[in-house]
């Protein structure tokens, strides 16, 4: 499963990758901003996207990703727990909204569930 991981923090990308490895999500493309992520989406097939909700243009990026792939799971990681933000994320096409800070177990569980969902659809 090819994953696109979008976060402007190299540290956070490292933490997330360490959580992904035991899930055998080892085919990972990293992007640090929305333009780089869109270029990655256009360059290759992506099966799962993990997007930092605090990124500039995060919701626009979700819409772009959704426009390119209607069924790809999109996981948003965000510290904002406001109902408006969560509603907007879902409306843009986010599959799973994970609140920061998260434990490795919690993120792992969310990823496991969206992978299961994607696999059973395929």
């Amino acid at each position, binding site marked *: 499963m090819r994953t696109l991981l979008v976060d402007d*923090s190299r540290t956070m990308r490292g933490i997330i990758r360490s959580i992904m490895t035991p899930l055998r999500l080892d085919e990972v493309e990293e992007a640090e901003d929305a333009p780089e992520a869109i270029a990655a989406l256009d360059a290759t097939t992506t099966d799962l996207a993990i997007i930092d909700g605090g990124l500039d243009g995060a919701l626009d990026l979700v819409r772009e990703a959704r426009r390119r792939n209607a069924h790809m799971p999109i996981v948003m990681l965000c*510290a904002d727990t*406001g109902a*408006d933000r969560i509603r907007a994320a879902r409306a843009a096409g986010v599959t799973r909204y994970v609140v920061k*800070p998260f434990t490795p177990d919690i993120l792992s569980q969310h990823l496991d569930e969206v992978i299961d969902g994607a696999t059973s659809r395929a």
Partner: protein
Amino acid sequence: MTQSVTPPAHTPLAHSALRVLDAMLQEHGEPGVPEVCDRLEVGDGVAAVFELWGSANGIVGVCFPRDAAEHIIQLATGQPPAFGAPSFDDAIAEIADTIVAGARDAIGGPDTGVSRPRLVYEGSLDAGAPGVCVPVWTESGTFFIWTAITVSAATPDNTTTGGRA
């Protein structure tokens, strides 16, 4: 119209810091006793400073003495820390940003803008207004949350979040 008051943002920020350390780094701690302080002493460490504007104005600082910063970054990255290196800055900024984002309710809500963190190494910071400093005791060492915030008298409440997270 503004009032020169400091809303009680330091306690939610300290608790947010503990949540972040607990969740992301499995590091535990507890908040210390807040004290009024006009300046943030960075000392030999590093502070991530956030500017606020809108219905709340001022500064929030998350200040790590060097030893605590290095221990925390070691936990976060799994790598030996290189104090002051770009990777070190990135990790400090991300941890501080997550702490502040987790306390948005307490620092003005959606009508308050919060800047990206600016890192300050050594020396001290002066907000030009009285602030509150609260130590956060952790297994990695003690670090400090500093707030110097004024709020608009017209702001009815601070119960909604918004902005960067």
